[in-house]
């Protein structure tokens, strides 16, 4: 097996002919791979609670 990555770590070539499918047309979603992910943009696990912008709390002084 011979696999190359570009600078971002994405698979771009594979001698066993998997990589085109993997890199350009991913076959697996995160959940299918067993990955649950939290980012600031998606998968917000919390009930919306009138926070200013989800940036870490409606504290009495916190701002960034």
């Amino acid at each position: 097996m011979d696999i190359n990555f570009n600078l971002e770590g994405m698979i771009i070539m594979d001698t066993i002919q998997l990589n085109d499918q993997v890199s350009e047309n991913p076959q697996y979603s995160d959940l299918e791979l067993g990955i649950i992910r939290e980012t600031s943009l998606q998968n917000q696990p919390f009930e919306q609670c009138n926070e200013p912008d989800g940036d870490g709390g409606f504290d009495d002084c916190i701002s960034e």
Partner: protein
Amino acid sequence: MTVSQNKIYQSDLLFKYNLGNHLLIYNPVGDHRMILLDSAAQQVFKICLNHTLSQVCDHHLLRNLSKKRIISTVSRLADYGFLSIGKPAISNISQSPHKQSLSLWLHLTNRCNFNCSYCYIAKDNGHMSSSVMKTTISNAVEQCRKHGLENLTIKFSGGEPLLAMDLLRETVYFTRELCSKFDIHTKFQIISNGSLIDKKITDFLKSHIIPVACSLDGIGTINDRQRIYFDKYGSFAAIDKGITTLLNSNWNPHVLVTITPENVSGLKDLTRYLIKRNLCFRYAFVRDFNNRNLKSQETKHISQLFTSELNKCFDDIEISIRVKQFNSKVGLCGINLNRSSNCICGVGTSYAAIYHDGSICSCQMAFNEPLGHVEKDGIIDCIRTRHSLHGLRERESNSNWQCNTCIWATICAGGCPMLAQKTFGTTLVSSPYCHAFKELIPRLIRIRGLALLYSQN
């Protein structure tokens, strides 16, 4: 050499916790801070360590997974910054870039119907005039344009800002109109004691999308030990009524809990009250530096006491998440798990407190140390060049900052810098509550991981 022969490394600064069948991994830097891996994905992740991709693909423990899936898992984890291929990942733990925003504590009035034991605002009948408000907002907008900031957040505060409702309304209309001319995005928040909230006020706040933060420190008499009216009468019933009014209008408040030696024994009951209502809330430790010597041995004891009680509360929160009774956000002292910073707040960069007379201050805890005035000084110019927080600018490069060697340095960032300054005369020290932060931050991460896990199930 092809990449398949390169070693795979885990990022160098990962925190891992087992949550049942899932592995929680928290990366304190980067865009993707937290992931959960099921048993198959965590098997791949663990075998990756110091193996090449070829070795991982051929590993006997992964024979039940297709090579395509293994490669996809490795690739995805590398994309998200939890693995690196070919060379060890060295995390850059410098602070996140500052948001393109200015946030103002707008001190509408110095009046308050409460006289809470730990309040740091010296209250009187002073209040902001319409003229000072307009000068302040105009100043802020001009400064946002000068410094290229796109967002302006106004926090209505005091005193009790609902005692200045007419000015609050006027501020909303004036700010919206002015900011719309310059494409500056405006947000409002209100920090209230909750006692004056009624249906009419709630309707106004909701219709203008003004989130509400209310303070509540305990149930019944526990709250009333420290949150009291001037005639010493307790405030719990009034606050509870205000919170209920907001809930009935589906305008859920964010509850601020201040922990002191007087109310810590009731923290668990209060937590259950908040869980039952599925309210977002945050705990904070008292910053009563006027009356208490935070350098003392007593503070260490208090910090340990707070930690012990909070651990019990966190136990309840974890259980309630697991049984799906609670899915709101829980915070501690402004700690933001999504951000790397050498300062926990925007003091000195993106945050200012404007006193009712127009004085510009670094923070509402420093109203006695004005840096300038809205009539003659630019707000951002002022807070960035005149603040007196010793060492704040040099923290990142200063080996004398006590937090430099702490793994949580960019998460809690030494706690409240004003508290450090007032207590020790410098911000190059760790928080008086350092012990508590070190013990409780991992628990915050676990709670967040659980919330993420159960939000998917």
